[in-house]
């Protein structure tokens, strides 16, 4: 019957997209409420039930707040009693995805990992229908989680520096440490990371992955002390994005112990950028000095030839 359910899922999904998924979602949510109430295993929803749920939600295609018809009335009392424990959709999704990370080494960044996690949480594996983007949702959730962790770490370090408990690092060292901290979060999943990277490059995932990347780079520079409000704002972030992406690529095919080669590569890239910034400053200063010198020479010439005299 689970196979039948699986086929039913595939069939309906191919016909109607998000409306059916919303129906599944509500069914899954209410199953969670009812599951934790009853010890006996609840029979999986039959094809008819699933289809009805799909139809009732597709008939009211307005939005999230649309009310379903008959299948849910019997569940409403139970979910009502669960008032305080009822979590939002986002919280539930986050919980499932976090649990799914454990299954990634085994199943890869796929819907199977999500399904396995849903089962360990006591949900039916059909609750993967909640995730419109499938594996993309899992990867993006992981990236967001890592970035949040990084921001927390940087804020904590910043706090310590403000309180005088720690010394402020120089920019190059700070950047190196921040990028290394962030990349080390990939180590448990490094074998399957190429798959995750290719998922992030899918066209419908690119806006989100770019947003995460730019937020992370902005965070790192903010805590490194960058408060520039001119073109430097853009050049610095572009440089760090380049460093991060190339180091990530190197890390994925690095086989040295504890990724020593990766950190050496990172060190060199950061040195390059810092050198370039210094060179640019020097060029500008030299240029200004040269211009001043030329103007001085011109005025001297004018004086010599008597052109500066007033008549």
């Amino acid at each position, binding site marked *: 019957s689970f196979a039948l359910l699986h086929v039913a899922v595939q069939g309906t999904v191919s016909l109607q997209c998000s409306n059916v998924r919303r129906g599944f979602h509500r069914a899954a949510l209410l199953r969670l409420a009812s599951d934790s109430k009853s010890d006996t295993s609840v029979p999986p929803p039959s094809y008819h039930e699933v289809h009805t749920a799909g139809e009732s939600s597709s008939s009211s295609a307005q939005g999230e707040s649309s009310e379903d018809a008959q299948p849910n009335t019997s569940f409403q009392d139970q979910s009502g009693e669960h008032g305080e424990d009822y979590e939002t959709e986002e919280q539930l999704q986050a919980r499932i995805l976090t649990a799914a990370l454990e299954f990634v080494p085994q199943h890869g960044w796929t819907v199977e990992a999500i399904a396995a996690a849903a089962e360990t949480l006591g949900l039916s594996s059909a609750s993967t229908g909640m995730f419109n983007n499938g594996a993309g949702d899992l990867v993006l959730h992981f990236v967001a989680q890592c970035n949040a962790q990084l921001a927390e770490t940087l804020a904590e370090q910043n706090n310590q520096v403000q309180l005088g408990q720690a010394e402020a690092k120089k920019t190059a060292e700070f950047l190196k440490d921040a990028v290394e901290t962030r990349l080390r979060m990939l180590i448990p999943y490094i074998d399957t990371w190429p798959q995750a990277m290719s998922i992030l490059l899918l066209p419908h995932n690119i806006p989100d992955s770019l947003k995460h990347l730019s937020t992370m780079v*902005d965070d790192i520079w*903010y805590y490194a002390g960058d*408060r*520039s*409000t*001119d*073109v430097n*704002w*853009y050049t610095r972030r572009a440089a760090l994005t380049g460093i991060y992406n190339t180091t990530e690529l190197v890390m994925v095919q690095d086989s040295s112990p504890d990724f020593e080669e990766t950190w050496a590569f990172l060190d060199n890239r950061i040195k390059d950028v810092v050198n370039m910034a210094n060179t640019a400053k020097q060029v500008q200063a030299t240029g200004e000095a040269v211009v001043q010198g030329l103007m001085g020479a011109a005025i001297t010439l004018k004086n010599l030839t008597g052109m500066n005299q007033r008549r």
Partner: protein
Amino acid sequence: MQRAAKCALRLDLSRAFCLEVNVNVCMLKSLPPPRDEEEKAMLDSMLRVDHAGEYGANRIYAGQMAVLGRTRTGPLIQYMWDQEKMHLEKFNEILGEHRVRPTLLLPLWNIAGFALGMILTRIEGTMSCTVAVEESISEHYNSQIQTLMEAEPERYTELLQVMLLKNFVMMKKKNRDTGLEHDAESVPGYLLLKTVIQVDCKAAIYILQRI
């Protein structure tokens, strides 16, 4: 000579008003942290445009100084330029504190502002350009004030104060300039120039809010 006298009067009044605005801009301690994405986006674009405006004003004065630096009005323009520099510094601080992205067009604005400043010194005699520019900017501030008031006036009291004061200053200037504007209207092509400038200002504001 009468026109020169009027110029001097206008510049004196500008100096007095600039000081007022300056005091309030420096008193702008900080804005409340944004509550959600929408509010952050709105504040972001407002601060970005205002910062670009200050930066542009800075460059315009630089351009004017490059041409008129050694004339009689030089010191006055230098004084007003210094006031604008203080505004710009304050806005730089605000941008850094609230992690607002500066506009990508700053280098372009740099050159354009300087060139505009130099051009303005040619046409400044009739005050027509400045009046047109200030009308556009006044309208822009008005719409920003409206947005903030519609959202929640209490949260943005300080920012509103600064904007209202700047607006007030510009409107006062405009009232006093009405007399001078009559002079300007005698210049052929004045209306065309005014329309062109106002359309340019609107386009610039639109672009700067987004990029």
